């Protein structure tokens, strides 16, 4: 751990990343950017896992494993999401989330 960098730095970073992700998720219209925002959220969580693991239980690796899991899940999730986006594109010739409103009342 480098000198002068405490846990609060990590936490501030991850919080910033999380809310940037949330903001992007809520405001972007393009599905790909929304997907990127989701990745940001997931990675902020990863940073939290690793940092807190390091500071609370340095002898254990549970946090790291969870981070690994999240990375794996994120990869598969991206695969599925991209597949959905491609098929949406084929159908609508665009990938604006506002136009995907088939499931309303």
């Amino acid at each position, binding site marked *: 751990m480098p000198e002068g960098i405490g846990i609060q730095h990590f936490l501030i970073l991850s919080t910033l990343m999380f809310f940037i992700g*949330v903001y992007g*998720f*809520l*405001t972007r219209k393009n599905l790909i950017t929304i997907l990127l925002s989701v990745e940001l959220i997931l990675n902020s969580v990863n940073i939290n896992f690793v940092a807190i693991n390091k500071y609370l239980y340095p002898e254990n690796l549970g946090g790291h494993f969870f981070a690994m899991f999240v990375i794996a899940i994120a990869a598969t999730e991206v695969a599925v999401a991209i597949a959905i986006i491609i098929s949406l594109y084929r159908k609508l010739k665009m990938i604006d*989330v*506002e136009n995907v*409103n*088939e499931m309303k*009342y």
Partner: protein
Amino acid sequence: MENFSYTLVIPLILFFTFVFTGLFGGKFKPVISGIICTVSVFISAALSYFAAYQYFFIYGKADGAYRLINVFSFHWLRFNDNLSIDLGILLDPISVMMLIVITTVSLMVHIYSLGYMKGDIGFSRYYAFLSLFTFSMLGLVLSVNIFMTYMFWELVGLSSYLLIGHYYEKPAAVSASKKAFIVTRFADLGFLIGILLLSAFAGTFDFNKLTDPNGGAILQSASATFLGLSAITWALILIFMGCAGKSAMFPLHIWLPDAMEGPTPVSALIHAATMVVAGVYLVARLFPLYVFTSPQALEVVAYVGAFTSLFAAIIACTQTDIKRVLAFSTISQIGYMMVALGVSGYGAEEGLGFMASMFHLFTHAMFKALLFLCAGSIIHAIHTNEISEMGNLRKYMPVTHITFLIACLAIAGVPPLSGFFSKDEILVAAVEKNFVIFLVQYIVAGITAFYMFRLYFMVFWSRDTKYEHDPHESPKVMLFSLVFLAVAAALAGFIPFSEFVTSNGVPFASHIHLSVALPTVALALAGILTAYFLYKKESGSPDKITNSLGIIYRSAYRKFYIDEVYLFVTKKIIFNLISIPVAWFDRNVVDNAMNGIAFTTNYISEKIKVMQSGQLQQYAFVMIAGMILIFLLTLYLIIV
């Protein structure tokens, strides 16, 4: 040792026949289902005769008295160690006697119907229901406990309903069947309450225990009283209310005359010979209870019976529908049986009334079934029920004429036909106990002879009616039943009944009491002669008499307005004061509450459905906002 387990077949074979013809009756020619049912009734009749032979002559006696034989019984419903509802078969003198009556009459009716119902659309349905009825009636008389009786009691009510409504296109038949069902159901309400009361105090449903004179049920019969009568008396009166409904005692008799809308053989089987005497049978079954625990209830039985028999006999004199005359005659004769039970004591000679009642039940079943079958034969020939449209039929229908005459003589009590013997025993029993009742019954004997011969002369003699086409004698199958029953009606009186059926099972010898018999026969002959002079030839004198009687005749003709009273009570009082407010409450309060809930739900969902916009980011925003809100709330709560 004796083995009566074959008696199980007697009812069950008819149940299977019912299921079979009921389900598959439409698959083959109607006459085949008729024959199947007739054959199975024949088997059950043969087994009944065999059982009666074994019971009365070989195995039934122990220590000089006929005993109850529990052929078998198993626990069907168990409430606690003492109280359980069993199903099983009980043989004792009266149930074996009833087996004979039911299967004989049922067999005759089955055979008769092969001719009478020929060509009817509902032929196999009719036979299926006849089997159902016979099954339930046999189950009723064979039951081991009062609750099983109740179940079969309802089943006979149901099959009676189905058979009265056989011609369901006729509105009169439909309303008659409903009337029969509702009136008897109403009476059965009392029966059920009576059963529950009785079992609450006696702690058992079982007939063996209930009717054992030394048993707990009678000895501990409770001390609790209500309105001056002991609880057990109330129970027995309520049970008698059920009996009165089934046996058409005043004031619950109104359904029986209307039940004549059913096919005539059904009237012969159900509404003359078997089902309507179920009430008498049940009182006889519980007779030790009535005698030992509640003489008041027995008095109720006697007075209701006496009043009904007089009341119905008077109405019978005025009716012009052949079947209705017979129906009122049935009511009157059942009144006789009730009276006989009501004046009876317990024991051998003291139980004369009990024996007489069962004897009369037996002979009445034979001659009344015969009368109805004769009436059916007449209706079959000329297609009308109105006796004013009949006359001079003796020329066309000699066999029907002779058998009808035999039955009339039997019911009028002319020796040596069967009715004489049984009626004599009843009158003897009554004169020893209660002179007023005896007098009523004595007068009724005369009226009976009069109205039966009024019917006889008007139908078979009287004027030369012109018929559209000459009436023909009925087919052989029908005549066979008539002749068989005529022989039974003529000879049944010679059975030494007191040797077999007595209240405590001990046989005794009964005699003809000339001091009672002679006046009765004289009165019966007087009745017959009156009818002879009035109706043998068509004349104006009956009209003159009815005119001079005026209002009395008219009210008797309208059955003393009992139906109108019922209509008034139901339509004016119950409908207006109870049903209409209840219906209003249902329609306005209950329904509106439900509709209001549904309407509100619908309204709200219409309003909030726009929230379901399909915009993913909107949903996500709401979700996240909610999460933040909850987070802040939790934080606030923790801090504070």
